[in-house]
């Protein structure tokens, strides 16, 4: 997602990285990161260490936020090196600027982050080579030990075997010798047919689930370090506001209270226990300076969107093929529609929190973060220390959805720790978590299409107004007046064969912080595009599935998921009174089609089944892949049905789950999920799952009612589910 702003590593850099720098640096660099019981392990390379007893410790460069990456990364490495799965353990790697941390950057963009659904797509070839390099070094060490040619040896299940003499040595016995072998310059990965842990419909039990079920898993909020105290935070009542005066006399004598700390746009209380900090915060008298945008509200923001959409300034061309404006101007058969997706909050169930200890020349962080390298950069600025002196210990993340890519909450904890002179665990209340969010902004699309004689679109022109979502997570800011590549995703580079295409983008400047959220631009843009294609199909008097088939003639993989989903959902053969809607997407290196089937009960939506078929090229773990898609469906239902942030008096109205509504258990209908593996390259599944749900749902609703819903969420448009009232 960041190729526009970060130079891609050159091919030479990649080869150098794989051959020498990464592997050699990793030998030394990772030792400190290994678990205590693996202290005597030999580091074969930056990702693999083997203890004398044969236990293998594998580094996970990415953050585990529910997507199962800690299991799948480990399985990719273990499979390539032919390790014994029962002896493999996973540790979270150091951050990129830490000593030895270089090899844990995303190899595509040389930046360590977990997001954009690209852990697998960016790391898979690299991890296979790391595993293969370890296997080749183990085989070379075994050849020395056994006095036989390496070509006569095979590695399998944590052993290197010499079948001719029926001898074998365990990985643990030769680990130290393997670590001393020359690093292979071009390690040879196994053919897919020899994958034993991943692919081919396999599923592994995830390595984090037992701990999560027993309450043992350590999330950021569960961290305990010696001498630790707690901080609670209260932000300015208006967005962008600042504390003007803090009257702390009222809290000075309160039990456990240690410090009152002024922060950028907020005030914190540090106390021995968390609830003591909360009690003191409630007593604190703060005079707040109003934010620069004052008491803006929804009408203010909507007027800004409307002005941008109808005005001539701020536009940038995101994609142009043929002459869409010209064809539209000459056409007598033009369809026009406007769509709007609302402001939404990430609201992962674990509120933002971080534990920080500040020392004389650096800091140690324990936190649930998606952007460890961003944490190092931000704390190096806050604490005036080199980024490499900020150690980041990643815990499990209680959801992320993009929010934990930025480090504002870690910076607050660092300032509190520095002020208090003690390690501080800072925890936002749910209200602060939503109020201090960087929201996914509203997206407003104005779409026009010209239909040809056969009813198929011959020109499609989209105008999108949305603030940037990429800039806050990018090391280089995205300038107004240019194209934010993530904001326009799904409107550009889609799979539909339309001869004349034009997408214009207007990066609106708003007084509210904005950033990426699960599905990035694809979510809101797919709602617009796939609703509009449905409208075109109906305008042409065609079946929406068949209409899309014709439009997908140039993308056989996406056409295949469309066909498979239609077949699985029994498209067109729904029981009487049931109605279906379909939508499709090509994004995150994968493609997906979803079909929603619903009926109306007393005017309310009853969902019956949602069918999903995805093609990520290769499914490495089927059970986990199903989790990603089906969990994504529920996320998509929250977006379609319930969730919206609205503004009043310069602040969000919704600050907890009473008003910021999300899907609950009864909302999830029967889910049918399948995969194809036609795509040539491996893609992501973490972000794509929700993408087609809003459009498919609204298309089904149109089939049922004849009324088109072009604004989300439906609950704000007076459309409810049969559970909407019960759980409202």
């Amino acid at each position, binding site marked *: 997602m960041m190729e526009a702003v970060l130079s891609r590593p050159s091919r030479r850099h990649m080869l150098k990285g794989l051959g020498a720098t990464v592997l050699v640096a990793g030998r030394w660099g990772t030792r400190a990161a290994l678990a205590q019981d693996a202290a005597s392990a030999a580091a074969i390379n930056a990702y693999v260490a083997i203890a004398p007893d044969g236990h293998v410790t594998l580094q996970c460069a990415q953050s585990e936020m529910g997507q199962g990456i800690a299991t799948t990364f480990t399985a990719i490495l273990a499979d390539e090196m032919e390790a014994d799965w029962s002896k493999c353990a996973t540790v979270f790697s150091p951050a990129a600027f830490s000593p030895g941390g270089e090899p844990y950057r995303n190899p595509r963009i040389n930046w360590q982050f977990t997001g954009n659904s690209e852990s697998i797509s960016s790391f898979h070839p690299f991890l296979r080579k790391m595993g293969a390099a370890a296997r080749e070094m183990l085989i070379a060490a075994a050849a020395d030990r056994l006095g036989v040619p390496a070509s006569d040896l095979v590695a399998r299940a944590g052993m290197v075997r010499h079948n001719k003499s029926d001898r074998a040595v365990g990985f643990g016995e030769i680990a130290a010798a393997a670590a001393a072998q020359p690093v292979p310059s071009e390690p040879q990965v196994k053919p897919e047919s020899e994958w034993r842990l991943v692919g081919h419909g396999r599923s592994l039990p995830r390595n984090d689930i037992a701990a999560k*079920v027993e*309450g043992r898993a350590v*999330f950021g909020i569960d961290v305990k370090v010696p001498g630790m105290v707690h901080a609670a935070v209260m932000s300015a009542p208006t967005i962008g506001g600042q504390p003007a005066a803090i009257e702390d006399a009222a809290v000075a004598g309160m039990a456990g209270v240690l410090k009152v700390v002024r922060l950028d746009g907020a005030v914190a209380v540090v106390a021995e226990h968390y609830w003591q900090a909360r009690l003191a915060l409630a007593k604190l008298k703060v005079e707040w300076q109003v934010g620069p945008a004052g008491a803006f509200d929804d009408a203010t923001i909507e007027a800004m969107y409307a002005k941008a959409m109808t005005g001539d300034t701020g536009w940038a061309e995101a994609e142009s093929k043929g002459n869409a404006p010209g064809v539209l101007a000459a056409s007598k058969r033009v369809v026009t529609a406007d769509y709007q997706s609302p402001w939404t909050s990430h609201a992962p*169930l674990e509120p933002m929190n971080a534990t920080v200890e500040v020392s004389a020349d650096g800091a140690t962080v324990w936190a649930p973060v998606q952007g460890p390298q961003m944490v190092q950069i931000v704390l190096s600025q806050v604490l005036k220390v080199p980024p490499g002196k900020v150690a980041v210990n990643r815990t*499990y993340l209680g*959801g992320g959805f993009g929010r934990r890519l930025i480090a504002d909450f870690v910076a607050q904890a660092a300032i509190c720790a520095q002020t208090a002179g003690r390690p501080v665990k800072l925890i936002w*209340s*749910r209200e602060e978590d939503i109020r201090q969010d960087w929201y996914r902004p509203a997206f407003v699309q104005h779409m026009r299409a010209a239909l040809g004689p056969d009813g198929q679109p011959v020109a499609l022109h989209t105008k999108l107004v949305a603030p940037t979502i990429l800039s806050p997570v990018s090391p280089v800011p995205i300038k107004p007046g240019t194209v934010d590549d993530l904001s326009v995703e799904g409107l550009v580079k889609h799979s539909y064969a339309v001869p004349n295409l034009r997408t214009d983008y207007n990066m609106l400047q708003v007084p509210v912080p904005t950033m990426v959220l699960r599905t990035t631009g694809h979510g809101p843009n797919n709602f617009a595009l796939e609703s509009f294609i449905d409208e075109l199909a109906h305008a042409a008097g065609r079946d929406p599935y068949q209409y899309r088939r014709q439009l997908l003639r140039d993308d056989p993989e996406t056409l295949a998921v469309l066909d498979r989903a239609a077949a699985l959902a029994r498209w067109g053969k729904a029981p009487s009174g049931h109605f279906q809607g379909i939508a499709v997407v090509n994004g995150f290196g994968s493609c997906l089609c979803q079909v929603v089937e619903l009926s109306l009960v007393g005017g309310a939506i009853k969902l019956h089944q949602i069918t999903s078929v995805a093609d990520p090229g290769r499914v490495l773990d089927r059970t986990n892949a199903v989790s990603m898609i089906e969990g994504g469906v529920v996320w998509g239902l929250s977006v379609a049905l319930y969730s919206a942030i609205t503004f009043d008096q310069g602040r969000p109205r919704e600050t907890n789950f009473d008003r910021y509504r999300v899907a609950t*258990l009864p909302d999830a209908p029967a889910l049918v999920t399948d995969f194809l593996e036609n795509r040539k390259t491996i893609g992501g599944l973490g972000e794509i799952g929700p993408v087609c749900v809003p459009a498919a749902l609204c298309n089904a609703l149109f089939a049922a009612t004849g009324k088109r819903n072009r604004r989300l969420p439906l609950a704000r448009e007076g459309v409810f589910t049969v559970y909407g009232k019960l759980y409202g």
Partner: protein
Amino acid sequence: MAKFNFTLNGAATEVDVDPSTPLLWVLRDHLGLTGTKFGCGAALCGACTVHVNGSSVRSCAYNMDSVAGASVTTIEGLGNNRVQRAWIEHQVPQCGYCQPGMIMAATALLKDKPKPSAADIEAAITNICRCGTYARIKQAILAAAG
């Protein structure tokens, strides 16, 4: 500060805390049992669900006066029960943060209704899962019911 005596996972327990401290923070911060999670602080999401005298309560909004003399069970006190085993069998958790609360709610449901219908499950499990594991939660509860 005030002293409260209660039974926690079968053991007699005494704490001396500010009497306004919710049960959740007594468990997490004073007694070190971090399996019970903080999600909303307003009894809306259920991440903090524990059992008091066998019934589900949302500990983030549960007063210590009501805990005095009672028996409290947390996720750490379930002892790998059939609900937890079904959760592992069905690979329910994604991020896992809501799951201790879900498991406590499901365990209480099965105590009241050993053979719950789908409607019983929909009515009883009002906890929030942002990862969207609801389909597997339903399957795991039905499997645990046998």
